[in-house]
């Protein structure tokens, strides 16, 4: 991979001058490294999705169904009637361009069709041509554009070059949310079988096994057992990690990557250690073994299909409420969709922390609490013994994940935890955090290797902000609360800011957490010497300043 990819210094030469060519020309070039491969037909077949066939985006013939145009237009009509957001966002954009340089893909690629206004305009031009009187009569003069196969290819290229991060919608004077447009675009593309494997394979896995990685229940159990053993080795404490246990008080739902992936895995270590320390009555589930939801990147229907398992499992196991782990888009689904799609959760109780007695009235309907909300409450009430010196080998910054920041407002909770468990913490520049945070560049199902160049381009603004705090404060660790971040920030930062590490907030918590009966800890959860034992041995860069 590395030899095919341009060097960072070359990729950073971004030309923002738009081409002379009129944007209405839909032709796009599927160049290696900037698009995702098509979904294998077996996944479409398993999921019952239309038009399964072998094809490739760089083919001339995409083997669309014969009546593809009718399908797309009817699909648009249906969605215009179902989603006010869609109809409104098609109608009211004034093309002021305030969104243009807010998109990480535009900043990283300079491709003018990556300006959010233009990404939506690709759809809007078709909407005007077929659904507005002015466009039907005046055509191009009213901004209308014919729907052709080339337009479908263009849609595919650009709607799978948007991570639905919603940063543009923060700056739009009308709150136009490109994520909504991209979601509609992807739904329409799915109607004619134009989808990508890196999304549909996890979706099919999740439908079948309960999680994106396709981990079957016995392997899930093995992974958790292995994790418990490893935790015992590091801390000397053997934790309970029940799976599918009926009658537990709380169901804990994680992004499945935490069972296998690194550095996700350390987050789960830290979390299970926390649960042990507070004696939480909880269970994991091998059926609802995925909080993440790649259905969100496919269609509203697919999102609902996958999400349904969480409530179903909570009901079956008879838990009182649900706790959710560190995952970005999972929380978009849980916070903004789950209750509406698969509720009401009237078989659950309003969440109450069994340790502090704190009620979580903001989750009283959905009955699901974010692990950071839960832990922040524990720390605030002084229920945890923490030794932040054990994280002294880290100089941390916090990367807000798009969805918790802009679709929920989970901003201070993780920061409070970080400041409590880590003595050296520095924010990235104001324009790159909180509601203005930049995407990792690989969200919304685009984190695949074949898309590497575009991911590096899209992640450039984030990486550049990390570089800023590395140079200024000696930051060596990016903490985050998102499984996709944990998977894709390491290669991104390796490319732009070599030597950086990525960790979940609860990994750092696990490092600092003092548990009864534990050994003198000589290493952190990664097996690296801890700050207290070997601050000088830690990967501390030169010139680190407080």
């Amino acid at each position: 991979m590395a030899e095919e990819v341009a060097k960072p210094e070359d990729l950073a030469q971004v030309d923002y001058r738009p081409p002379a060519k009129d944007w209405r020309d839909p032709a796009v070039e599927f160049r290696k490294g900037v698009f995702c491969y098509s979904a294998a037909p077996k996944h479409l077949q398993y999921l019952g999705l239309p038009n399964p066939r072998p094809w490739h985006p760089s083919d001339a013939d995409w083997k669309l169904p014969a009546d593809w145009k009718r399908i797309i237009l009817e699909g648009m009509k249906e969605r215009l009637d179902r989603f006010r957001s869609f109809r409104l966002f098609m109608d009211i954009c004034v093309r002021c361009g305030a969104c243009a340089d807010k998109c990480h893909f535009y900043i990283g690629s300079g491709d003018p069709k990556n300006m959010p206004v233009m990404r939506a305009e690709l759809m809007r031009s078709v909407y005007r041509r077929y659904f507005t009187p002015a466009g039907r009569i005046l055509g191009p003069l009213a901004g209308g554009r014919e729907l052709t196969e080339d337009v479908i290819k263009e849609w595919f290229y650009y709607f799978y070059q948007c991570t639905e991060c919603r940063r543009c919608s923060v700056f739009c004077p009308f709150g136009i949310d490109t994520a909504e447009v991209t979601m509609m675009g992807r739904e329409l593309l799915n109607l004619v079988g134009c989808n990508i494997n890196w999304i549909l394979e996890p979706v099919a896995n999740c439908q079948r096994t309960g999680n994106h990685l396709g981990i079957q229940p016995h392997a899930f159990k093995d992974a958790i057992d292995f994790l418990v053993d490893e935790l015992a080795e590091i801390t000397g404490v053997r934790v309970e990690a029940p799976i599918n246990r009926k009658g537990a008080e709380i169901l804990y739902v994680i992004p499945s990557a935490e069972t296998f992936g690194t550095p996700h895995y350390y987050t789960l270590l830290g979390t299970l250690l926390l649960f042990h320390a507070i004696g939480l009555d909880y269970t994991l589930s091998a059926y609802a073994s995925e909080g993440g939801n790649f259905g969100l990147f496919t269609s509203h229907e697919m999102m609902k299909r996958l999400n349904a398992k969480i409530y179903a499992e909570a009901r079956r196991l008879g838990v009182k409420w649900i706790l959710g782990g560190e995952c970005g888009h999972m929380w978009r689904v849980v916070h903004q969709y789950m209750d509406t799609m698969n509720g009401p959760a009237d078989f659950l109780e309003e969440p109450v922390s069994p340790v502090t007695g704190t009620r979580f009235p903001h989750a009283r309907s959905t009955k699901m609490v974010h692990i950071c909300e839960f832990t922040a409450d524990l720390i605030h009430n002084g229920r945890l013994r923490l030794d932040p010196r054990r994280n002294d080998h880290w100089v941390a910054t916090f990367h807000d994940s798009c969805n918790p920041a802009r679709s929920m407002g989970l901003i201070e909770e993780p920061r409070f935890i970080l400041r409590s468990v880590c003595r050296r913490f520095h924010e990235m520049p104001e324009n790159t955090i909180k509601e203005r945070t930049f995407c990792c560049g690989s969200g919304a199902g685009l984190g695949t290797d074949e898309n590497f160049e575009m991911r590096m381009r899209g992640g450039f603004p984030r990486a550049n902000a990390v570089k800023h705090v590395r140079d200024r404060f000696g930051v060596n660790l990016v903490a985050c609360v998102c499984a996709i971040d944990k998977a894709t920030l390491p290669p991104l930062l390796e490319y732009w800011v070599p030597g950086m590490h990525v960790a979940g907030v609860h990994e750092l918590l696990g490092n600092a957490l003092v548990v009864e009966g534990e050994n003198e800890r000589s290493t952190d959860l990664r097996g690296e010497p801890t700050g207290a034992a070997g601050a000088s041995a830690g990967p501390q860069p030169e010139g680190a300043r407080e």
Partner: protein
Amino acid sequence: MNALGSLLLVLLLAGLGFAGGQVAGLRPLFGVVVPYAAFVIFLLGVSHRVVLWARAPVPFRIPTTCGQQRSLSWIKPSRLENPSSTLGVVGRMALEVGLFRSLFRNTRTELREGPRLGYGEAKLLWVAALAFHWAFLLVILRHLRFFLEPVPAVVAALASVDSFFEIGTPGLYATDIVLAGALGYLLLRRLLSPQARYLSLFGDYFALFLLLGLAASGILMRYAVRIDTVAVKQLALGLVTLSPVVPGEVGPLFFSHLFLLSVLGAYCPFSKLMHMGGVFLSPTRNLANTSRMKRHVNPWNYPVDVHTYAQWEDAFRDKLKAAGLPLEKE
């Protein structure tokens, strides 16, 4: 080219109005029929579009949160940027509609040597947009002196505040200067920025030129090519009391002004100018972030195919058993 084409079209329309005002036989058309028709199209068209929006449901609660959520009691929530109450939403919407809060956030991204990304201040677009919209509103309110008899004191007061500096006779209106200046900036920005030029459509320039034409003809009539304002008020009052008076000599420039206004009104429902109503309906702004607090109902929430627990257990029964995981059915 979009800009040139729309400029020519607006000049043509202004010329048409001008010519219509000069021919006595066409005055009933340009002074009465066209304005009435435009007004009806405006009202029906705008209503139709708003009803179309209203008929489409908001299936999910999807506010864009721009601040701290309301969660734990000791964490201060951002009541306006991430509202969790109706009052907060009203405040957020008032800031959006009245002060263009989101546009105020605008920055300019710059890629410098290093590579280093910088995010500089870019408030000029916000200033110009806000100046234009407020000036336009005040100008419209000032025009009420032609439509109301007797003229309410508040309209007279507005005019005297607007001409506070008493420059020239009749006194120069500050809003005229602001309106024309802001429109000029918005036009130049579209023409000079390569990105803005790339994404601008015919309709974007057309709306700007229409408004500029309106402003220019209005300013000319007040300060240079004077017209008989009593006759204008006669016409305006006749129109709004549904007893139209076909105007005599008013001055052809006035007919340009009136015709451009008619075109603007009739064009509005078919164009991006509908953002005027749409800004109130944006679900990313006008919903409280209470997604987990209160259940939001989707009227078309249809059942979907779910891989149930029973199916899952059946599929993995042997493996579950071997791993010692509990089963529903042995």
